[in-house]
């Protein structure tokens, strides 16, 4: 009874605030944020949305994006759309938008001046198709991070490395101490992502753009990318004893000092936070592997399927506004370990690693990420190649590079 009263009260305030017919509306939101740190972050979004008098119905799908996206897409194409859904902004939902299944948010965007508050601008660009805005970016996630366990290096008796090259040199010492030098989980996207990070770090920003943006197959087969494959070969040797699948299990190896480090996006930070570790003291983070300090502006965004129900459509607008609200942005991104999409929010509480990221962002050293540059089809082929490369020690660098160049050549 009390609960019902409270909902009624909330609904009343909501009705006052938005002066619309909106009573408490249930809106199902699907996402793949299920690890400890991620779940804590998404709870912040739910809290903020519930405070508007609507109700966030959580539709978490376990098993990372590769498992979740097909489920989301088949629900949308199959005529059972949810209220809102997570995708990585970029090309994942491209065809859904072209088929007219997604809601055009341009009106709300102009009203709330998204173009002025969202930074960097490229985020909103990847939500824009044919001049219309179709998604709300909620965070910036960059892959370019190397997470190192200070305890592991102490045990091995070597100083914590400052860049990738020092790290590779320290690998034998780690191995001697019974520590896995590099943790790479078995899920295909992990090895493929690690390679992309190496490409941007070892090869440099230009090489990265030439391969993935210009899709230059001759360059991809050339000597500069060969250097990157050499580095990937080092990584493969360092990672050969990781017997885990999920990325957070691999991160956990670093947290517990069983592995020296991991190349993983900044979402790994949430795991360190949940484990109660402090940046700089318990673990060290090296953006751009300490070689090329750039961060990619990939990340998560919410898309809103076109709904017939007017109440729900109204609630979608409220949710879109809530997601970009400065307060929500801070609360969510602190828990998630990602960077906020607004430049005007106060991040006093950010830890060392996040501050490093914010600095790089302020300097403007940003690159687009593969989600924005490549189709899912090409991404999948890349995943197949690199999961094979990392699991098969007898696959030669030359062979892998040739196949990589073929994929780049046929990319769309």
């Amino acid at each position, binding site marked *: 009874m009390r609960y019902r009263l409270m909902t009624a009260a909330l609904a009343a305030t909501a009705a006052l605030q938005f002066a619309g017919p909106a009573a408490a509306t249930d809106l199902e939101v699907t996402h793949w944020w299920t690890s400890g740190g991620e779940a804590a972050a998404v709870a912040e979004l739910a809290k903020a949305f519930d405070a508007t008098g609507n109700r966030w119905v959580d539709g978490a799908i376990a098993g990372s994006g*590769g*498992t979740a*996206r*097909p489920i989301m*897409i*088949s629900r949308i*194409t199959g005529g059972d759309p949810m209220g809102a859904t997570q995708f990585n902004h970029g090309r*994942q939902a*491209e*065809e*859904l938008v072209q*088929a007219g299944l997604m809601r055009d948010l341009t009106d709300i965007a102009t009203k709330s001046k998204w173009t002025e508050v969202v930074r960097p601008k490229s985020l909103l660009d990847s939500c824009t198709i044919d001049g219309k805005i179709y998604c709300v970016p909620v965070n910036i996630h960059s892959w370019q991070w190397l997470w190192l366990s200070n305890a592991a290096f102490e045990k091995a008796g070597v100083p914590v490395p400052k860049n990738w090259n020092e790290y590779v040199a320290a690998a034998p010492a780690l191995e001697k101490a019974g520590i896995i030098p590099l943790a790479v989980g*078995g*899920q*295909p996207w992990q090895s493929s992502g690690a390679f992309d990070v190496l490409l941007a770090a070892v090869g440099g920003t230009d090489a990265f753009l030439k391969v993935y943006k210009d899709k230059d197959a001759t360059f991809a087969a050339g000597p500069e990318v060969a250097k990157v494959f050499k580095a990937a070969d080092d990584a493969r040797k360092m990672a050969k004893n990781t*017997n885990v*699948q999920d990325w957070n299990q691999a991160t956990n190896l670093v947290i517990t000092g069983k592995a020296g480090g991991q190349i993983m996006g900044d979402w790994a930070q949430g795991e360190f936070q949940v484990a109660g570790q402090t940046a700089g003291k318990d673990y060290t983070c090296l953006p751009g592997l300490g070689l090329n300090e750039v961060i990619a502006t990939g990340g998560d965004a919410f898309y809103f399927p076109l709904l017939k129900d007017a109440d729900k459509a109204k609630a979608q607008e409220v949710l879109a506004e809530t997601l970009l609200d400065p307060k929500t942005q801070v609360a969510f991104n602190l828990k998630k370990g990602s960077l906020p999409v607004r430049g005007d929010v106060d991040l006093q509480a950010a830890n060392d690693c996040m501050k490093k990221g914010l600095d790089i962002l302020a300097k403007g050293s940003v690159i687009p990420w593969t989600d924005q540059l490549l*189709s*899912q*089809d090409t*991404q*999948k*082929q890349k995943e*197949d190649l690199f*999961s*094979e*490369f*990392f*699991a*098969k020690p007898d696959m030669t660098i030359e062979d892998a590079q040739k*196949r990589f160049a073929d994929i780049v050549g*046929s990319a769309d």
Partner: protein
Amino acid sequence: MSKSERPNQLFRNLNAKVASIPMILTALVVFVGGTAWTVLYSFTNSKLLPRLNFVGLDQYYRLWSTPRWLVSIENLLIYGVLSLVFSLVIGFILAALLDQKIRFEDTFRTIFLYPFALSFIVTGLVWQWLLNPDFGIQRVVRELGWESFSFNPLYDSSIVIYGISIAALWQGTGLIMCLMLAGLRGIDDDIWKAARVDGIPMWKTYLFIIIPMMRPVFITTLVIIASGIVKVYDLVVAQTSGGPGIASEVPAKYVYDYMFSAQNLGQGFAASTMMLLSVLIVIVPWAYLEFGGRKRV
């Protein structure tokens, strides 16, 4: 043929025919129609959504030059031969042993059939743990004193498919045993008596008299096993998700991954058409021999 006879044929057993219309429609629209649709769209470059934009055999060229697909086919062959041979042999031997009028037959039958009650997902997870080097069989044997013992199929690319086959055999053999046992029980006792009178040893009786008499049972079993082989998917997903690398990929998983997570329907359809083709190559000659031959006799 006179005109008056035709309606007669059509309206004979009218009730039965009307009653089967829904099933006929389902078969035609869902199975045949769906298959035709899939084959048609496998010649297009459909991405996330189906589009009629024909590209000829491009999807098939790409399919057959993809290492992952070739690995999948090879795995399916190994897995297929292993599960066919071993589940038939083990299933038959278990059935023959149970058929010796032993005590506690019910108990044994229940034990052997029990794994079949588990889904492939559960089976896969159970065997993922059993075969995990850090807490499965390898660890138990090592703790018993054999320090150098190594049994780690799921993390070794060259033998991972055998690790999956073990789980599949464990799950499926019980059912084959039951089918075989039913077949054995259907053999008249007099045959056994006659064989005994003639002094034929027991193994010879099984091999040359009983097994040929059980032909229908074997054919049923074969169809059940074969269909299980072609569609193997969930076991692999639960046990290894295709890993390490792409070493335990199977065709059905390729179809799913390319249709849904790679958002490339055309490629997925091409792969599923190839799967259909491989089934047809096996089924058609067999059906021809089985049904075509009988009519002529």
